[in-house]
C-alpha cells in the first residue's frame, strides 16, 4: 500500500471508529444502567453539539442562544404532529428543521454584524426572546408552560417492510442514525476548503478577508448550519421523549451546550458529545451520593471553571494533544515535498490576469485619481494621484504622518475613500471591498505579520491560494481542502520560491521572525497578483535578512507591478524605478530616484521647516 493510499484510508478512521462505537456502546449502557436511553439522550445533545462545535470550536463564534433553534426545530415538528397538521413524521421533522434554519438566517444576519462580546449578548437575547415567545404569545401552539405531549415516532414503510422507531431501542437506532449522518457531514465540512476558511476566520478574520474569502458569507453559513443541527436535535428530542418540553428554549439549555462543549473540548467535533456524557453521567451518579445530592450542578460548574482555566482544549483536546506527542504525524505525508523546478515555478507563480476584463485597453496597471480620506478633522490623504505602468516598480516615501499607510490601505480597499477613484487595469474598483480587490489580482503584504498563527506554513499558503482559485464564496463541503491540484502546485512552488520548504509543516507561531516575514510575502503572492503592494517588507529584519528579502523582492518584480512603502532608503533607491514623495497627505514630488534625491523641496520636507 502506497503512502497516498494509506493516507486516504486514514481519513476514514474516525468515521469507522464512530460507527463501531455506535454499534457497541449501547450494549454497555444497557448492561450498566439497565437501559440505553441515557446514551440516546447523550447523542441528542451530541447532534446539537456537532453544529455548535462547527460554530464555536472551529469558527470561534460563541453563541449563547442556540436553544432558540433547538426549540424551534422541536416545537414546529411537535406542533405539526400533535396538532394533526401532518401525519408523516419525517416530513414534520423536515419542516421543523427548515423553520429553525429560517429563524437562524434572521438572527444571524443581525447578530453577525458584531463580533465577540456583542455577538454573545445578541445571541443570548434572541435565545431568551424565543423562550419568552414560546411561553406566552405563542402558547396556543406550543402549549406554553406545559409543552406538547404525544409526539409520535417515525416509521419506515418500504416495500412491505414496516418498522416503527417507537420504544427504547428503536429510538436509539433513530437517533444514532442521525448522529452518524451528522458526524459524517460535519467531518466532511471540517476537512473541506470551507473548514479551512472557517479555521482561518477564527485565527485572523481580517487577513482571511484580505485573502479573498467572503468572511461574512462563511460566518452566516456556519451559523445556519449550526441551527440545522440544533433543529434536528430538538425534533429528535420531542420524538424520543414523546413530549416536547418548554425548557428546550431556556437559557439553561444554551448554557448547558456551552458547558458540555468546553468540558469535552471545543473544536474536536465529538467534544460536545463527550461533555454531554460527563454531564449526564455525573448528574445521575452524583445526585445519588447523599453528601452531594443537589450540589451536582455546582460541582459541574466548578469543573467547568477549572477546565476553562487550565485545560482550554477540554478533555478530548487534551487527549488528542497527548496522543500527538506520542505518535507525531509524519510531516512528509502531508502534501508531499515535491521538488518544483525553476521553470515550473515561474509558470505557476506568473501573475493571473484580472477576472474583470476592462473595457478599453488599460494604460496603467494601477491608478489613483485625487484620492482623499479624512478622519474627523484630520486629512490623512488629501488628493493623492498616482499612476503605475504595467511592470513598474514604484516606491512611496515620506516623513511621519505623511499618509503612506493610509494610502496603501485605501488602494487595497481595506477602507473606503471619501472621494477620488482607484482603477485597476482600467476597471474602477473604488467601490470594491478588500475581498474583491484580492480576486481582481491586487494583493498586499503587511508591515506587521498577519498570519494564521496556529496553522502550518503550508496551510497558511493554501488559504491564500484557495482564495484566488476558488473565489470568494463556495459551499463545497464535500471535497477535501487539499484536493485542488492547481492550489497544491502553487503552494509547492511558493514554498520553494520563499525557501520555506524545510519548515512547510511546522506551525507558524513556532517559527523565527525571518521565516514569518517570508511567509507574509508568500501570502500576498499566493493569489498570483498582477499588482503587489508591499508595506515595509524589511521591517524588523537584521541587516543580513534584509539582503535576502531585497533579492526576493527584486525577483518578484519581474512581470509584476510593485508599489513599495519603505523607510530603508538604501533599499528604496536600489529597487525602485520611480518614487513618489508624500508630505502631509499630498504628493510633494515624483520622479526617478536621482531626481528625488536632488530635489530641494524633498530635502526640506525631510529635514523640517517646510511651511504647510
Amino acid at each position: 500500500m502506497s503512502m497516498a493510499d494509506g493516507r486516504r484510508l486514514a481519513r476514514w478512521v474516525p468515521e469507522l471508529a464512530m460507527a463501531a462505537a455506535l454499534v457497541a456502546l449501547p450494549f454497555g449502557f444497557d448492561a450498566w444502567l439497565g437501559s440505553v436511553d441515557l446514551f440516546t439522550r447523550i447523542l441528542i445533545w451530541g447532534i446539537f453539539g456537532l453544529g455548535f462545535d462547527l460554530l464555536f470550536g472551529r469558527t470561534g463564534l460563541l453563541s449563547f442562544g442556540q436553544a432558540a433553534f433547538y426549540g424551534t426545530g422541536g416545537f414546529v415538528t411537535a406542533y405539526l404532529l400533535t396538532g394533526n397538521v401532518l401525519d408523516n413524521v419525517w416530513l414534520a421533522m423536515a419542516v421543523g428543521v427548515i423553520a429553525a434554519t429560517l429563524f437562524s438566517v434572521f438572527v444571524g444576519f443581525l447578530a453577525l454584524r458584531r463580533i465577540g462580546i456583542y455577538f454573545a449578548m445578541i445571541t443570548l437575547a434572541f435565545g431568551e426572546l424565543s423562550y419568552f415567545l414560546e411561553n406566552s404569545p405563542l402558547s396556543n401552539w406550543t402549549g406554553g408552560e406545559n409543552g406538547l405531549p404525544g409526539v409520535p415516532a417515525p416509521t419506515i414503510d418500504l416495500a412491505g417492510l414496516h418498522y416503527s422507531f417507537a420504544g427504547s431501542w428503536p429510538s436509539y437506532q433513530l437517533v444514532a442514525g442521525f448522529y452518524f449522518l451528522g458526524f459524517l457531514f460535519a467531518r466532511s465540512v471540517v476537512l473541506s476548503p470551507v473548514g479551512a476558511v472557517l479555521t482561518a476566520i477564527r485565527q485572523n478574520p481580517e487577513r482571511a478577508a484580505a485573502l479573498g474569502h467572503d468572511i461574512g458569507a462563511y460566518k452566516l453559513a456556519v451559523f445556519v448550519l449550526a441551527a440545522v443541527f440544533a433543529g434536528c436535535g430538538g425534533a429528535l428530542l420531542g420524538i424520543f421523549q414523546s413530549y416536547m418540553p418548554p425548557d428546550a428554549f431556556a437559557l439553561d439549555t444554551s448554557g448547558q451546550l456551552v458547558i458540555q462543549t468546553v468540558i469535552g473540548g471545543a473544536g474536536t467535533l465529538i467534544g460536545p458529545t463527550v461533555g454531554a456524557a460527563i454531564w449526564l453521567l455525573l448528574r445521575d451518579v452524583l445526585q445519588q451520593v447523599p453528601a452531594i445530592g443537589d450540589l451536582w450542578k455546582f460541582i459541574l460548574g466548578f469543573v467547568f471553571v477549572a477546565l476553562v482555566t487550565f485545560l482550554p482544549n477540554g478533555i478530548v483536546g487534551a487527549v488528542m494533544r497527548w496522543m500527538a506527542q506520542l505518535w507525531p504525524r509524519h510531516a512528509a505525508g502531508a502534501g508531499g515535498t515535491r521538488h518544483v523546478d525553476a521553470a515550473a515555478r515561474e509558470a505557476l507563480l506568473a501573475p493571473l490576469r484580472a477576472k474583470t476584463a476592462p473595457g478599453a485597453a488599460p494604460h496603467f496597471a494601477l491608478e489613483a485619481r485625487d484620492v482623499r480620506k479624512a478622519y474627523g478633522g484630520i486629512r490623512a490623504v488629501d488628493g493623492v494621484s498616482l499612476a503605475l505602468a504595467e511592470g513598474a516598480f514604484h516606491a512611496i516615501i515620506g516623513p511621519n504622518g505623511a499618509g503612506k499607510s493610509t494610502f496603501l490601505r485605501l488602494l487595497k480597499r481595506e477602507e473606503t475613500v471619501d472621494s477620488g477613484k482607484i482603477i485597476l487595469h482600467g476597471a474602477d474598483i473604488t467601490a470594491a471591498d478588500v475581498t474583491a480587490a484580492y480576486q481582481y489580482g491586487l494583493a498586499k503584504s503587511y508591515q506587521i505579520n498577519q498570519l494564521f498563527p496556529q496553522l502550518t506554513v503550508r496551510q497558511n499558503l493554501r488559504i491564500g491560494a484557495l482564495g484566488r482559485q476558488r473565489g470568494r464564496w463556495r459551499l463545497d463541503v464535500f471535497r477535501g481542502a487539499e484536493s485542488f491540484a492547481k492550489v497544491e502546485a502553487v503552494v509547492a512552488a511558493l514554498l520553494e520560491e520563499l525557501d520555506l520548504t524545510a519548515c512547510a509543516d511546522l506551525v507558524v507561531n513556532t517559527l523565527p521572525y525571518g521565516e514569518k516575514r517570508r511567509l507574509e510575502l508568500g501570502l500576498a503572492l499566493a493569489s498570483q497578483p498582477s499588482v503587489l503592494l508591499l508595506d515595509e517588507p524589511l521591517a524588523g529584519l537584521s541587516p543580513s535578512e534584509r539582503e535576502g528579502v531585497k533579492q526576493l523582492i527584486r525577483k518578484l518584480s519581474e512581470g509584476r507591478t510593485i508599489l513599495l512603502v519603505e523607510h530603508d532608503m538604501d533599499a528604496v533607491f536600489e529597487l525602485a524605478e520611480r518614487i513618489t514623495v508624500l508630505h502631509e497627505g499630498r504628493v510633494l514630488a515624483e520622479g526617478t530616484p536621482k531626481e528625488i534625491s536632488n530635489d530641494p523641496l524633498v530635502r526640506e520636507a525631510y529635514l523640517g521647516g517646510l511651511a504647510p
Partner: protein
Amino acid sequence: MPTLAQFLSQAFNGLAFGSLLALIASGLSIILGTLGVLNFAHGAMFMLGAYTAFVVLGHWDSFAGALALGALVLLSVGWATERGLIRYYYSRPKEDQILVTFGLGIMMVEAVRYFFGGLSQRVPLPSWGQGIVNLGFFIYPLYRVEAIGIVALLLLGFYLLLYRTRIGLVVRAGIEDPLMVELLGTHVRRAFLAVFCIGAMAAGIAGVIYAPLAAVIPNMGEPFLVQCFVVVVIGGLGSFPGAIVGGLVVGEILSLTTLFNPAYAQAAIYAVMTLVLIVRPRGLFGTMGRA
C-alpha cells in the same frame, strides 16, 4: 383603553424598574469599559443581594442593615472573584472571559440553591415601606416610590464617585487609554479591583432593594442579566450615561407595553434592541474604549 391612573401607575413602575436596571447596568458597564470583561455573573451577583436581604429582613427590620450587609457580601465576592480568578484572564481572549464568568455565575446560583432550596422566598417589606401613597391622580405602593428615591440617591452616588473622586477619574481615563494612565504614574491594574467590586456592589444593592418586590429564587438574576445586555446595547458599552438612559428606556418600554398587551412587553425591548443594532450599532452614547 387604559385610564390616566393606570397609565401613570405603569409609568411609575417603569421608572422604578428602569432605575433599578440602570443601577445594575451601570455596574456591568464600568466593569466592561474598564476591564474589558463582560461579566456573565452579574445576574447572580444581583441575586446574592436579594438573598442577603432575605436573611437580614427575615430576622431584623433593618433595611439599612440589609443594604450594608448586601454591600459587604458583594464586596467580598467581588474581591475574591477578581483577585482569585478574573485577573488571570485579562490577557486571554474575550470568549474565555465570558466563559469563566458564566461558570462562576452558575456556581453562585447552585450554591444558593443548595443552602436555601429552590422554592421562592418572600422578603417582607420594611416597616416604613408598607402601605400605599396617594399621588394625586392615582394611588401607588409606598415602597416603590421609596425604592425610586433610594436608587436615585445611589445613582447620584455612583455619579459622584465617577466624576468627583480620584478613583473615578482614573476609571474614566482608564476606559479611554489605560497606557497613558500608566505613563502618568498610576497603576491601572490596581484600579481594576476597585472597579470590579464597585460593579458587583451595584448589582447586589439593587438586589437588596428589589427583594421585597418579587419572588426571591436562585435564578432570579437571569432575566436581569439579559435585560442588562439589552440596556447596554441600547445605551452604549462602557458608558455610564448610556446605562442610565438605556435602563430608563427599557424600564418604560416594558411597563407601558404591558399596559396594552402584556404578552408582548418582552418582545418590545428586543425589537428596540434590534432597531438600535441596525440603525446605530454603537448605541446612544457610543463606546469609549474596549467593545
